[in-house]
């Protein structure tokens, strides 16, 4: 017995320690070798740009592939990518892209205009089931082809005039179109590689695996271990290889943000995908803090179901909204890392300022509620708020629940739901109040305001206003100037907030821990990472002391 115990425990210790040696930290080694250790939030669904939908996927795909343009991380202005230059026609409906003369795939093949034509047709092919196909809908006939109304892909407004010239025809002038060119649904994929492993529209092939995949971006895929890491290395065929300063990036699927923060603290990561709320005050206090935050193009709000009493009365909706002290919420519950929101569009989107029609006003809220027939909360039928399970959603809901009780003397019950149940409830409009967030796909107010057109797929509130629909769908796209367009958006958003089908709460902020050695990774409104600009400086590693 004793001998068994001894042998077993020895074996156990040996198996654990396995040649224990004090290793160099990832960050120290990475700084020396030019390898960035990047916390990326979760395991990507895949690496096919026309299949995946998430943010972690976009970070890896942006390193591997390149669209016609690539955004500057400071200004978010498009810079040359696979296209070296482009020009607009007189009516701004036709764009001619001139391909990079030295553009190469990672196997040495040239990147041509034909690659983009083939890829866009693939991205729009109904059989592909691409959830982001709509990003290309501004292109002539793209929507008709993607929804099966026309069968001939040649009718889609993208043509190769020759190997090096790509002509894109739009339905209407689209001010934000160039921004879409560095969204992965508009990226080119390597036709030969895809066809070697299966049909063009087959989602299940192995073409994206290490050794198979061919890409045209600054990096190429070196190693992919599920749920462990994805390693990309310098692509020697990349046209602008000289400008690329990193030798490689290691992406970690850091699902648990608390562990991610600890990995950062012991120098296992250069960059975290997120920062736990509770840790923010401590990091803020640190001298030379690695904590970086910036406004992010997104709004956090509650959907109010205008088809169910008591929310079918606009006065009740307004009373609820006016009774919320957004300043106190963002200051105390969110540790000041987000700004209060009073409309759906985040402020400063390309210079557009949303209307602010109201402020925290419990007096007025009580008056409105009394007018609606519930003076002092009398006769209140009760209200249920649903949110998907998450620590921060819970905190916000608990705070608002009490604000409503204090200001209006009404009870609102909370109900958290598992993610897919919640999604189901929202899309079926099976709720009274539901938590919701919207992150912009591109920087333009249209991306937020077209949510609330009548029967819009993401409307989910029952809000319907023909004047609003006309402003968004008919008048704004035809506006002569950006100022005139924004004026129409402002008018529409004013109508929206007067009806209050949504209760805005705060605008998002991106939050990261960035190691002092990382340069060229500035915060920006899109939380966009341009890997071409990143480099590492060999700074001495210091401890991050949380008080």
């Amino acid at each position, binding site marked *: 017995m004793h001998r068994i115990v001894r042998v077993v425990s020895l074996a156990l210790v040996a198996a654990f320690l396995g040649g224990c040696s004090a290793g160099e930290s990832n960050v120290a080694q990475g700084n020396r070798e030019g390898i960035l250790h990047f916390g990326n939030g979760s395991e990507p669904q895949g690496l096919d740009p026309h299949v995946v939908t998430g943010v972690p996927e976009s970070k890896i795909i942006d390193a591997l592939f390149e669209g016609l343009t690539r955004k500057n991380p400071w200004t978010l202005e498009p810079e040359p990518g696979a296209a070296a230059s482009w020009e607009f026609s007189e009516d701004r409906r036709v764009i001619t892209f001139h391909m990079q003369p030295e553009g190469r795939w990672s196997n040495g093949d040239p990147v041509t205009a034909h690659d983009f034509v083939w890829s866009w047709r693939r991205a729009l092919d109904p059989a592909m089931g691409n959830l982001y196909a709509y990003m290309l809908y501004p292109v002539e006939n793209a929507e008709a082809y993607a929804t099966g109304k026309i069968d001939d892909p040649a009718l889609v407004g993208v043509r190769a005039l020759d190997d090096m010239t790509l002509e894109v025809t739009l339905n209407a002038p689209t001010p934000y179109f160039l921004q879409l060119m560095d969204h992965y649904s508009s990226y080119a994929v390597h036709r030969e590689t895809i066809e070697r492993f299966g049909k063009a529209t087959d989602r299940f092939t192995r073409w994206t695996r290490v050794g198979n995949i061919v890409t045209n971006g600054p990096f190429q895929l070196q190693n992919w271990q599920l749920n462990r890491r994805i390693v990309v290395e310098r692509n020697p065929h990349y046209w602008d290889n000289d400008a690329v300063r990193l030798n490689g990036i290691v992406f970690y699927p850091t699902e648990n943000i*608390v562990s991610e923060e600890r990995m950062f603290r012991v120098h296992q990561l250069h960059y975290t995908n997120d920062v*736990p709320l*509770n*840790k923010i*005050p*401590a990091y803020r206090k640190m001298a030379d803090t690695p904590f970086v935050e910036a406004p992010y193009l997104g709004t956090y709000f509650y959907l109010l179901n205008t088809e169910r009493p008591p929310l079918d009365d606009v006065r009740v909706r307004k009373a609820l909204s006016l009774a919320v002290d957004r300043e*106190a*919420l963002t200051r*105390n*519950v969110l540790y000041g890392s987000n700004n209060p929101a009073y409309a759906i569009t985040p402020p400063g989107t390309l210079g557009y300022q949303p209307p602010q029609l109201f402020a925290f006003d419990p007096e007025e809220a009580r008056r409105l509620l009394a007018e609606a027939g519930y003076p002092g909360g009398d006769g209140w039928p009760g209200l249920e708020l649903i949110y998907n*399970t998450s*620590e921060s959603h*819970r*905190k916000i*809901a*608990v*705070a608002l*629940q*009490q604000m409503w*009780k204090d200001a209006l003397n009404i009870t609102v*019950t*909370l*109900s*958290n*739901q*598992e993610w897919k*149940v919640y999604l189901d409830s929202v899309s079926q409009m099976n709720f009274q109040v539901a938590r919701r967030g919207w992150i912009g796909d591109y920087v333009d107010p249209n991306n937020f305001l077209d949510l609330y057109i009548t029967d819009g797929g993401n409307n989910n509130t029952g809000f319907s206003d023909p004047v609003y629909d006309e402003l968004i769908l008919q008048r704004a796209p035809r506006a002569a100037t950006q100022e005139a367009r924004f004026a129409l958006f402002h008018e529409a958003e004013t109508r929206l907030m007067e009806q209050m089908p949504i209760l805005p709460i705060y605008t998002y902020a991106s939050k990261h821990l960035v190691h002092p050695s990382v340069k060229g990774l500035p915060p920006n409104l899109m939380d966009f990472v341009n890997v071409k600009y990143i480099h590492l400086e060999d700074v001495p590693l210091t401890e991050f002391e*949380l008080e």
Partner: protein
Amino acid sequence: MTSANLTDVVQAEQGTSLWKDAWRRLRKNRLALFGLAVLSVFIVVALLTPWIAPYAYDAQNLDLGASPPSAAHWLGTDIFGRDLLTQILYGGRISLAVGFVATAVALVIGVTWGAVAGYVGGRVDAVMMRLVDILYALPFMIFIVLLMVVFGRNLLLLFLAIGAVEWLTMARIMRGQVQSLRQQEFVEAAVSLGLSPATIVRRHLVPNALGPIIVYTTLTIPSVMLLEAFLSFLGLGVQPPATSWGLLISYGAETMEEYPWLLIFPGAALTLTLFALNFLGDGLRDALDVRGSGD
């Protein structure tokens, strides 16, 4: 002293029943009595909470936020500025109720199932235990989500859902015990005396198998309290501002570096309950051990 002796004598004359005998022995076990006392106090406090809690359980003070223990808030406050002592008192009501009721459900089903399977044996045993295997393997999460969709959220469902998973291991343990006891001389003697199977199971097998069952039960209660927190994340279980110990601990775990008191005090409440349960459980085990030397 004398009166106790007297009762003993009277009971002995009446033919001391198993349970009375056990109670007599339990009273001699100081640790077990301590456990019983702690649990009784907790239950009484839980019943009286609405009258004795120092604050309203949902009263927030956002500007105060999380504050360490002070004269105004003996155990400190959470990030909403809510009094932690009040939260623990109210949370105890839920946790104790869930812990005891759900475990009782599991106990009744598990012991019966395991005893029958173990005693009858053969095909019946095989079918019963394979059913247990099937239930083990079903994806619990999907099962809970579905239960909620069909029945809506309510506390009764919570008890059933927890009981439904916890009885499985209980049944396996009980069956193992009964199987090993069944071939012992005293059971064979009982069989040869012509006692009915139900009587044999009730009189001889269950009491003799009780040791591990009691221990497993006392282990199940705290794990059930924690399971409740997990179910709350799926949407079953209590909803804010109501709370439970399991929820308080899981929230506290997230901020243990910043606000350690939010973890320590709810954790202490759960730990104390567990210690009390275990002392009581061990005492009960010893007291019920009909052949044991009593040590």
